[in-house]
């Protein structure tokens, strides 16, 4: 598992992928930060809530870049033959890859610490809000990565993997919009059910500082389910 983790983490920086991912975020988000938190005196605020919800949008588009290669590239280069004929458990393999992507995501969060630091210089951070937003973005980020890895395990084409993940993320978002708009038209039980599975509802609870155990269990379960499904897909490939 450690070997896979090290190799995959390094591969993000021996290919342009890691730089595109981090660079894309930094460019877009820092611009946002500058415009809304620094430059415009009239709207300028100490709150990071805006930039984090913007980050959530950007994440839908950039997470696929992070995860599209994970298994697709191994299939295409036939390096999966090395992985699957080595004395390694499939679960360890998937976990190693998951942690490698997650670490890149953490690199991004490390870079984003610039924002609260800048705010601290010119004003006062709302610590509860900052903490809540970080926890929220970590949980949803991990869930996205697990989903992206699962999609990547289904195809040997990176582009299909990326578009597939993007479709899944956007689809989930649209479902959320739909639930919000049809709340009055739908029967009560359906709204309750949709709210229960809603990723964004739970995300906003966490980011607003409502830390409930079930929300964390929920995100942990999403990661576990998708990583487990990935292991099953890899297992199934042997029998095809």
């Amino acid at each position, binding site marked *: 598992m450690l070997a896979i983790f090290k190799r995959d983490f390094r591969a993000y920086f021996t290919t342009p992928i890691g730089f595109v991912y981090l660079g894309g975020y930094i460019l877009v988000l820092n611009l946002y930060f500058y415009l809304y938190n620094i430059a415009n005196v009239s709207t300028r605020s100490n709150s990071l809530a805006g930039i984090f919800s913007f980050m959530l949008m950007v994440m839908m588009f950039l997470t696929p870049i992070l995860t599209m290669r994970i298994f697709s590239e191994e299939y295409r280069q*036939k390096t999966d033959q090395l*992985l699957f*004929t080595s004395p390694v458990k499939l679960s360890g393999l998937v976990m190693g890859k998951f942690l490698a992507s997650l670490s890149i995501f953490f690199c991004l969060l490390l870079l984003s610490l610039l924002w609260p630091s800048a705010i601290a210089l010119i004003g006062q951070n709302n610590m509860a809000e900052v903490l809540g937003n970080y926890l929220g973005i970590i949980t949803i980020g991990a869930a996205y990565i697990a989903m992206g890895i699962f999609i990547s395990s289904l195809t040997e084409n990176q582009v299909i993997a990326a578009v597939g993940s993007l479709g899944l993320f956007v689809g989930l978002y649209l479902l959320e919009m739909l639930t919000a708009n049809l709340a009055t038209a739908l029967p009560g039980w359906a709204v309750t059910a949709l709210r229960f599975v809603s990723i964004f509802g739970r995300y906003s609870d966490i980011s607003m500082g409502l830390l409930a155990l079930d929300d964390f269990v929920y995100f942990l379960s999403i990661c576990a389910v998708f990583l487990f499904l990935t292991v099953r897909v890899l297992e199934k490939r042997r029998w095809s």
Partner: protein
Amino acid sequence: MIEVKSLTKTYGKNRGIKGISFSIPEGQIVGFLGPNGAGKTTTMNIITGYLSADIGTVTVAGFDILEKPREAKRHIGYLPEQPPLHLGMTVEEYLDFVYELKGVRSPSQKDHIGSVCEMAGLTDVYFRLIGHLSKGFKQRVGLAQAMIGDPDVLILDEPTVGLDPRQIVEIRNVIKDMGKSRTIILSTHILPEVSAVCERVLVISQGLIVADDKPENLAGSIGGERTLLARIAGPKSQVLALLRDQDGIQNVSELGEMESGSHDFVLESRPNVDIRKPMFSALAKAGYPLLMLRPQDASLEEIFLKLTETGHEKTESEEG
């Protein structure tokens, strides 16, 4: 060391393998021979645990590949048809990765990888990116990858494909060297490779094993009656008549004039008769010099064609 029992795997219609069984003792170099699509790669992928068979079992070093995959895989080094290389890594990084991935425990990682590189002839390109290496060197990196961890069993899928003739000889020597202390299966469709390297040949055709023997026995058993190729100087009709008069000769056919003033003949002797001495005396007496005489053993190519043809007929009749 390797025990394969009635492996069957079907892909769609009439592809894959149909009940392959064999057993390979420790320290043997076995050649898998067969035309493209015969099932060599499939069999190897199943032995190494990359694919699973529909029916049948594989045991490596006493461990079932499905029930104890990690224990079994620890004993196997595998070089697939396309070496599983990460082109963006240097040879050093890649072999370090493989070492860690396989969980090898040796006193010194550096020494172990160093000795593997020496064996595979990679010392000069150790710090170069794999993507920048020539095909021959990539093949060697693949071979080195299989040798990491010093496995007892090496499975090599067409290890010399795409190499230049000098590299082929070198890689074969590396394989022979390694075979002194290891069990090796190598697949190929190059026949001389089998006689150059292997102690035993398994011929696969259409997903079935059609022959299992030593390379030299294979040549003998299929060669049938002994045939000789003779080049004799002299007028064609008289020489032909004289040859036909010989008791031991069953059949004579004329091949034509290859060298001016002489003719080539293919002579087929009766079973267990050595016709060379009487024929030589007879020709000498008649004053027709014998310019050349050599046995025409069935070459491996012919054997191969014969075997795979019969395999083909067999499967067809089975299906019919």
